[in-house]
């Protein structure tokens, strides 16, 4: 019993929590941006997948790691633009478009991967981001290895939260995005192009998602596997609801979630003989459903979420 409590007092547990949280943080921020503007983006799972592939492939073909992140960012933005053309400009069903984007992005990623590396049975590896010790802080006992010996990509992910928070709360664009999701008519009345605001939000948000996917191949692991996203995108959508569409709460939600995930991996090693591993693997998904049920009572969806805006139409 003591062993189960001791887990949370190890630096390794906290370091793992942050590592697991990073892709979820980026993806959740991306979805927050889209949904605050009134656009559900179910393309998230596929966009993360192709971001992971493109980021990895860019580095594998000789570019440096930061170019890999940039490549993921761009491919995410492109798929975001596709989603925006369908859902914002043409007003197509956000649900079906998103599922279609997920199918297209992931299958296209797999297709290109097989095209470039046809015969690889064992996935080739790259040299991923290495831990970067923050001077002085990394020397602290416990806190050093837990929080200040991460890869640069990890610090980028944390900075992304600060960026998203600043964007949403302190910039005219952030205000416009929020209005586009709450009351697009009022935004249009101010002479601001609702289509454009929504498109910017979806493109930016999708870029975040793809970078979240790239974290897996460039920092957490060193190779690209088929199906490596494994539902992280869907979990991020649940986290958005849990986080009430707020960037700072997305950070807390992702950390909480990742903490439980890191805990179960360690508890699994202690209890693995008694409880089959599949039940531990189910936990993140069951937890996400549970989190949505808890959040349901206070859930206040952006009012214009899922409603296509049409010029010259009054609701």
């Amino acid at each position: 019993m003591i062993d189960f409590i001791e887990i949370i007092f190890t630096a390794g547990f906290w370091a793992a929590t942050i590592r697991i949280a990073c892709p979820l943080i980026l993806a959740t921020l991306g979805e927050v941006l889209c949904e605050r503007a009134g656009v559900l983006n179910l393309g998230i799972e596929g966009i993360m997948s192709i971001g992971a592939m493109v980021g990895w492939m860019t580095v594998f073909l000789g570019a440096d790691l930061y170019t890999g992140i940039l490549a993921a960012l761009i491919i995410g933005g492109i798929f975001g633009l596709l989603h925006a053309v369908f859902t914002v400009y043409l007003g197509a069903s956000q649900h079906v478009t998103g599922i279609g984007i997920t199918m297209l992005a992931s299958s296209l990623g797999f297709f290109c991967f097989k095209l470039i590396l046809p015969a690889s049975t064992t996935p080739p590896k790259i040299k991923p981001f290495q831990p970067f010790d923050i001077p002085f802080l990394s020397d602290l006992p416990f806190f050093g290895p837990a929080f200040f010996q991460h890869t640069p990509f990890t610090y980028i992910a944390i900075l992304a939260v600060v960026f998203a928070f600043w964007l949403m709360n302190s910039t005219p664009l952030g205000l416009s995005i929020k209005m586009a999701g709450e009351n697009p008519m009022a935004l249009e009345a101010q002479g601001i192009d609702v289509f454009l605001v929504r498109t910017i939000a979806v493109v930016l948000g999708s870029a975040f998602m793809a970078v979240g996917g790239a974290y897996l191949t460039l920092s957490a692991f060193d190779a690209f596997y088929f199906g490596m996203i494994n539902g992280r995108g869907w979990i991020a959508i649940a986290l958005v609801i849990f986080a009430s569409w707020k960037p700072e709460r997305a950070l807390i939600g992702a950390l909480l979630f990742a903490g439980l995930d890191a805990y179960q991996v360690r508890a699994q090693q202690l209890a693995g003989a008694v409880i089959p591993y599949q039940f531990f693997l189910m936990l993140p998904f069951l937890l996400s459903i549970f989190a949505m049920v808890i959040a349901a009572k206070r859930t206040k969806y952006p009012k214009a979420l899922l409603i296509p805006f049409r010029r010259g139409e009054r609701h």
Partner: protein
Amino acid sequence: MLKFRLEERAKSPYWLIIVSPFIAIIVAIILAGILIILAGANPFNSYYHLIIGAFGSKNSVAETLARATPIILTGLAASIAFRAKFWNIGAEGQLYFGALATTFFGTGLVVLPSTLMIPFLFIMGALAGGLLLLPLVLLKLYYKVDEVVTTLLLNFVVVLLVSYLLEGPWKDPMSLGWPQGKSVIDEGVLPQVLSKTRLHLGFIISIFLAFSIWFVLKKTVIGYRIKSVGLNSAAASHAGIPIFKTVLVVAILSGGMAGMAGVTETAGLKGYLTLDLSPGFGYAGIAVAMLANLNPIGVIFSGIFLASIYVGADSMSRAMNVPTYLADVIVALTVLCVLLSLIFVHYKILFFGTKKDD
């Protein structure tokens, strides 16, 4: 920036509704052709191999129709649900639940003569699929918990449950270490309908079910209610249509169809449950339903179309060295092209200046 707006057509021309899915397919195939060129192959040759692979012989036709069977059923599952704007994306999990029910009841627990055993397994599979969806529907109706996310997440849970059962308590001791379930007893196995092929009774049953669902949707009160709830649930509620009951029926029917897809695969194609029973049939169902414009009879044809892409892509891949993932790309492109075509069917695109605004 190009300014335009969409104006809803008062009535969409009938020919446009019929023609639009075909145009969508053609556009998808042309776009995928660009990828084939990128892969260094000749697209015409590749598509020739794809068609031959899907329809070139009695055996390949049988294989295509056998593959279409579960896709038609998951397509029906999506059609029913999407009509009521209930976004059940969990057909994959419901399919596996149906397969679990088939394994539970069909491997010796219940022994009935074939004429009773097969319907019994289908009913159990449908119940299992419906039951899996039930708690999520109730969460949606009582707590407004978004069903898209919960149905998606539950897919992963169910696959892990199947993995546990097949590696643990339900593992067939005769399987030489492979994680697979016990074989369905002879009385429960769906008989071949075309000798020396893998085409089984499940295909006929899926067509029968498509017609039954068509009848329910078009000719019964329930079908009318489902349509009203999907078009405008607030108005439907004012008109005295019981929303709660209708959504519940939709979910049970939808989950049931997907559950039966698990039955056809377990008792028909394979004879036992495996972890790779469905290579994404649940998600393919969404594409099938969209392509058929949510029409149950259309689902039969779009299901066969999608199956032919999957089956044909295998032989195209062998002959032309194009990755089989092209099939998934074609399916995804089809979904998006169909969405696009639906916009053109229902709306006129007016560019600013072409008509005086307000």
